[in-house]
């Protein structure tokens, strides 16, 4: 799949390009992405700096940062980047790489949430909120965080006690299996 010559080491930057077609060398570090990022203040490394770290080969620093996990995927950055670099997609790839490399993520709750969410889909084919919240809460031990909204929601029929099942659950499971990382 790689188009690089044999004497070229396949770097994480190349891998990101393979995954998402985003070439980090496009970025000229103007910072416009970071300036417009809604969650910039919560991140430990500014989004443009994550690109910079990858450009320079400081992969560990980039993969360890909370930035990719806090990125909300809103694409504000991507749509404003003067160089048409899709930073949101790049962040996806950084996260994916971090998981692949088994990097310890500082903001564990977010990854736990995503895992819980995907587990629901894997099992039922659709998101099942009660199960999702339950699994997430058990894993993170934030047991009473959402008390202010959940019971009401159950009453209003907004959270269902039973999961939504789709018929062909197997086909969804298959997708998970086929796309699973080795």
């Amino acid at each position, binding site marked *: 799949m790689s188009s690089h010559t044999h004497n070229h080491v396949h770097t994480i930057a190349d891998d990101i390009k393979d995954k998402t077609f985003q070439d980090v060398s496009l970025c*000229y*570090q*103007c*910072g*416009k*992405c*970071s*300036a*417009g990022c809604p969650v*910039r*203040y919560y991140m430990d490394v*500014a989004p*443009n*700096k994550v690109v910079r770290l990858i450009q320079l080969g400081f992969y560990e620093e980039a993969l360890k940062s909370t930035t990719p996990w806090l990125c909300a995927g809103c694409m*504000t950055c991507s749509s*404003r*980047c*003067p*160089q*048409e670099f899709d930073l949101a997609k790049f962040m996806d790839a950084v996260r994916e790489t971090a998981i692949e490399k088994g990097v310890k993520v500082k903001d564990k709750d977010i990854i736990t949430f995503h895992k819980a969410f995907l587990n629901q889909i894997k099992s039922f084919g659709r998101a099942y909120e009660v199960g999702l919240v339950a699994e997430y809460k058990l894993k993170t031990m934030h047991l009473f965080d959402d008390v202010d909204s959940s019971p009401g929601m159950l009453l209003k029929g907004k959270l269902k006690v039973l999961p939504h099942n789709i018929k062909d659950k197997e086909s969804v499971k298959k997708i998970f299996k086929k796309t699973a990382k080795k």
Partner: protein
Amino acid sequence: MKIGVFICHCGENIGRTVDCPRVAKACEWLPGVEVSIDYKYMCSDPGQNMIKKEIIDKKLDAIVVGSCSPHMHEKTFRKAAVAAGINPFLVEITNLREHCSWVHDDIEAATEKAIEMVRMSVEKVKRDQPLTTIEVPVTKRTLVIGGGIAGIQAALDVANAGYEVVLVEKEPSIGGHMSQLSETFPTLDCSQCILTPRMVEVYQHPKIKLMTFSEVEKVDGFIGNFTVTIRNKARHIDEDKCTGCGLCITKCPIRKKAYNSFEENLAHRPAVYVPFPQAVPNIPVIDETVCTHYKNGKCGICVTVCGREAINFDQQDKLVTEEVGAIIMATGYKLYNIDKKPDDSIYKGYGEYGYGKYKDVVDGLQFERIASASGPTEGEFKRPSDGKEPKKIVFIQCVGSRDESKGFSYCSKICCMYTAKHAMLYKHKVHDGEAYVFYMDIRSGGKMYDEFVRRAIEEDGVKYIRGRVSKITEEDGKYIVKGEDTLAGMPITIEADMVVLATAMIAQPDASTLAQTVGIPYDKHGFFNEAHPKLRPIESTTGGVFLAGACQSPKDIPESVAMASAAAAKAMVLFGSDKLEREPVVAKVSADLCAGCFLCKKVCPYGAVEVREVKTRDGVVIKEIAYVNEGLCQGCGTCTASCPSKSVELAGFNNEEIFAQIAAL
């Protein structure tokens, strides 16, 4: 036909890898070759003399020289041939050095190749036709298109050398963008003060024919011999009668219907107007789109007040033709304006900066007008929305430039400088004001330029922040500017009273149309292309058309002026002789073969193919055929390849000559 072959060793250069004596020997056997010899330095005097002697002694008809690239010494050997009495176009050069000895190591293979190369040349030279250089007369007049500082300078230089100039400007006055500027970097001298005398000089110059409010419609002809059709748009005012008293302007009741484009729409103008007080010529124009007379036939106040009976509502556009020998393009630039939405624009525009929604977010030229003593605020810094003095201004650089997604990929080159100037001018007037500049890089190459930027930072306390702005929003009359300081690695939010966007210089919107009219190439952005980026930056690839100023790429005033003088000099080089000589590599149509399909006419990039009627003796047209105008043809041969009946051929590169080379393989 007797052919002589001369193989040069170039000292060791060819001789080391090509066995020159063997090549010469092998070529002796080629049919038609009378003599084949090798020599150490063919281009040296003894070498040339040897060639001449052989030509005369052996009565040669044509020669082949196996030496360096024809780009090197073709001229030398042609001259020698002419001196010995043969036509210069019966000389073929085989490039044994650049294309053989220097690029190969293997003596055997290189020698083999050299022999084949010479053989190809011999076959070609056998079919070469004697050609005579084409002579064309020169009209010693120059057309300058565009009356900005570049056009003004070029016109004055040519006129001062004693040649006539026709200067065509599409606006009612000359002066271009420089007349809009307040003060100019890096010296901060008043733009109008240095420009106005030049404008007047143009107006008064006996050798300059000035046509304002005019546009070039058509250009026919070729280098030395252009015929230009110019449209003089109707001003509705008789230029000969008007004294420029301005009474009509002051009395016109229509005052707010039209924006004043000279003031970058920061002010209004009446229906009858001159663009600005120092306009040259100082003759007004009536704007039909807003004048009451053109709506309902009423008003006519201007007619009443004009003591000179100069107003003429019925005046029509006039087409005039001028003969010139050279054309100088000086049509300048346009500024990228952000009040453009994607659907009505070639570029995407800045929605995040509001698409010009906010009144106090202005572009570079608007700020020039605000800073200008003759501008709408008389040089006081007042913001457009409420006329209050801004206490905090944010400048944003690289807007529309270095931004492929919103505008253009190139660096507009002058905006770093003008932003520093703007910030400085502001700080000089508003001492308690704050100025912030968001920049990506500071590009200030030029004499005293970087010092100028440093002065803004060190002496005037302008705060430079490295990073781009992501978004501007308005809140209670303040503009919230959100940017990033990439050096500190911090987001920065500034509540500004005014924002100035350093928008890019872009090509005039009609530049490509004009380029097609004149027949010169332009780049993908619409700037005119030079013939060679380094060695012929002033010339276009079309003979006799030269470039000056910002129409070629973003430029500041000194560069525009330098280029203008250079273009003037180039035009005068043409005028140095009465006749022009051209290589006779031109296409020619065989009248017998031509089927009159005119495919050639369609593909010719120079419009050199014309339609000719073939008549019987008594004047009956029997067919139409193609005819190549030698003056226009640049010898590209595109027509020859497209002709289905092979009836048009390029002299010096005709099919037979090329087939012969192929056959000699």
